[in-house]
């Protein structure tokens, strides 16, 4: 019981630390690719503390509650994800619940921003929702392939099965699904070439445009958690999770740095181009992966 409580408190904190570290790291790596020196690693923390002390504007009750809901939703998702062997809510509904609670974060943000009455927000949310429909098609096929392969909806079982059989991404035919997941990962993370949702130069950061002060701070924390969740899900499902938090963290780091490289060198897609891409190769691969999985098992 005590261990459980400690885990419940510890895992969001760890997730937050990792997520914010990633934010700082991304800026540093980007700067180096651009031949700049870049801000210190803890710059996001400094920014956040400063933001909490700054004045902000509010557009109404939903504007406040939405951002709270969004962050709370992300914290709950973290409790469902195994971090190494630590998973506080492992037996409360499994992958299906994870998939659905991951809705709360964008939904809360969309509701909050929606009250802002600003065209940039509408454009940003519209793009975000279309983009998520775009990547959900291959993502759902990938997740279904994994669940069909192991005949379970529990993410813990998928992780522990990989401890004995090896990483899922190296196994046939889920190699196809894993590849598809990797191809859509930038879209899930919202990094280039898929950052049309925020697109600072075009629509003034889209849904974020009305946020300032503590709103922006909470939105940044939320963003850090989303980074953690998206990568942790990939590592858990395809890279064998982690025997302990250290190996898990190293795996996440490698995936993230790869993602930042992609982010640094690609220009931005338009939303139609993004959908066309997502519904073509990743979907095809995921579809093949699912069919072959089904054929082999039956």
């Amino acid at each position: 019981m005590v261990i459980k409580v400690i885990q419940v408190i510890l895992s969001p904190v760890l997730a937050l630390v990792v997520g914010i570290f990633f934010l700082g790291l991304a800026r540093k790596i980007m700067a180096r690719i651009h031949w700049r020196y870049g801000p210190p690693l803890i710059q996001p923390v400094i920014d956040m503390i400063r933001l909490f002390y700054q004045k902000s504007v509010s557009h109404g009750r939903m504007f406040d509650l939405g951002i709270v809901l969004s962050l709370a939703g992300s914290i709950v998702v973290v409790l469902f994800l195994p971090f190494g062997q630590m998973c506080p809510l492992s037996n409360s509904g499994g992958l299906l619940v994870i998939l659905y609670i991951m809705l709360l974060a964008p939904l809360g943000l969309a509701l909050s921003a929606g009250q802002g009455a600003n065209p940039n927000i509408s454009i940003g949310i519209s793009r975000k929702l279309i983009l998520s429909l775009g990547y959900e098609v291959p993502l759902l096929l990938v997740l279904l392939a994994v669940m069909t392969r192991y005949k379970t909806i529990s993410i813990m079982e998928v992780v522990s099965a990989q401890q004995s059989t090896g990483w899922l991404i190296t196994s046939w035919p889920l190699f196809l699904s894993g590849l598809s997941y990797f191809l859509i990962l930038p879209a899930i993370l919202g990094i280039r070439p898929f950052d049309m949702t925020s697109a600072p130069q075009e629509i003034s950061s889209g849904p974020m445009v009305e946020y300032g002060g503590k709103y922006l701070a909470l939105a940044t924390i939320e963003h850090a958690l989303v980074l953690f969740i998206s990568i942790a899900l990939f590592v858990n499902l395809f890279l064998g999770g982690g025997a302990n938090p250290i190996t898990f963290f190293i795996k996440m780091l490698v995936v993230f740095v790869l993602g930042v490289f992609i982010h640094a060198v690609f220009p931005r897609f338009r939303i139609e181009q993004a959908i066309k891409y997502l519904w073509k190769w990743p979907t095809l691969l995921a579809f093949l992966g699912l069919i072959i999985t089904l054929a082999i098992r039956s």
Partner: protein
Amino acid sequence: MSLEILLIIAFGGALLTYLVGKVSYKGRNFLAVVISLVLIAFVACLYGKPVEKTFYFGFFGLGLVLRLNTLSWFFAIAISTLGALSVIFSLSYVKDRERTDFYYLMLLLVNAAMLGIVFSGDLVCFFIFWEIMSWSTFLLISYNRGPALAAGMKYIIMSLVGSLAMLIGMISLYTGYGTLDISQIASAITSASSGYILFILIIFGIAFGIKNAVMPLHTWLPDSYAEAPSPFTAVLSGMLTRMGVYGFLLLMYVIVGLRNVITPRLLSYHYILAWLGAVTIVIPTFIAMLQNDAKKLLAWHGIGQGGYMILGIAFGTSLGLAGGIFHTLNHAIYIVLLFMSVGAVQYRTGGERDLNSLGGLIKKMPIAFVGGLLGIAGLMGVPLTNGFVSKWLIYKTLILQRSPFLAFAALIGTWGTILSVYKFLHNMFLGQLPEKYENVKPAPFSMQLPIIILSAAILLFGILPGIPLKVINAIGTSFGFETLNVTLWGITSETGALNTINIFSALLVAAIFVWILFRLGAKSVPVSQEDSYAAGAHIPKDKYHYTAEFYNPLYRMIKPFLRDVIDEFYYRIAASVQRLSDSVRRVYTGDVGYYVTYIILFLALLILVQIKWKPW
């Protein structure tokens, strides 16, 4: 005994309300509410007292039977509760309309007929109540006149096709077994050939498929939902359409029986029905995204969600069945809530339901907004709302039973739903408030009350799904399915449990923590909607109209694929029938002189035949 009294109260009450309405409208409103509340109490008292009783023998030698079991109780309590809420909602909604006595008569009659359907113990009763329901629905759909007349006509024609199919099935059963008592047929049919069983399944399936708007029999629904008065649309979408689900349950698991329906073959009835359900989920959900009419958008979702129910009950495992039945209840709750929320907005904005001209109403109508928010959360299946639990049950069945493609259809339906319902909520309540709605007042209390009750129900059944699942579990057991391990907050099993109370407490603690963090930060300043940042550009004062084509990039890509081909096909049939009738009318002119000529010509023909061949 008690069932007859219940139905007498229901039908008699409807007529009495009409008569009282001729004298005083206050008395009528009071009576309508009282009767619907009495019906709830009555049905609630009947819980756990199964009855089967023949109350009349004289119908051409057939007994008319009323019966009560867990299945019918479950549907009856939902019907009476939602019916009462709809009557309460109507109090202000139809206040200033014409023919309100007629409206209440029909509304109560529809509820009474639905209660009759679920309490019927034989197919004659079933058919009679089914027909009362169909035509009273027709009259209510057409209540607003104008385009509503065409919608009602479309409904009644499709409904009649369904009724005829049912009648053929009944005649066939009667000639085969000499009885129309449901329990007698159920025991007699076990010896029937599989071909005959398939015939019965298909012929009744057409009737129930039309009522439940399963693709390709769905086309009556969008127009009817959009044109009917909002409180009745709530009843129509919540329970009346779902009489189709009740029919399928009765057909598949009571009359034909579990063993005869669920066969392991790939091309079997239940498997094809499950695939029809999956198609019914995906296509209407994506069509809903293109809609700009609030009620039409919900109507298409009504079709889509019906697909989940069919998918769940057709798949035929105890989890799937529980999911399907539970989803029927959940859908009823959130769709009624959504239609009421739209109704409240319509009432205060002069009947406006075009999503492009509304906006920003959250500050003016907070209760309607909360209703809309929880309604769409349930519709999407956000965890801790009721829709999530039933969908979880269905997904889990499909995944563990190795039907990932059916599961994919169900899951992608959810993500399509998110897009359209966000647009629904955003364009009505969020975003910019147009100047003409500056002085909109909140909905009256009689509209807010049902919205509050249903919002609470969504959260209650989402956090403690065990309450309805216990009853649903009993229904499944009575059909011969294995019992589920239901707890108050979910389901336990070796293949993955659901524990909503864990999710709830985690979210609650997280939300409180974040809220405290939020309060600790520097205070924010409330600003008006004009005071927003547009990078130096000017934001137009009234509607900025980006929301009009909210998902424009996606529309351009998917619109060509989403024509309602089936509807066009039916219209083409209707057009050719009309041409045929026109040419028939050229012969049957209605002029007696023509008929005399026909008779003389026919006699001449007979005489000619007799002279030539001498057959007589």
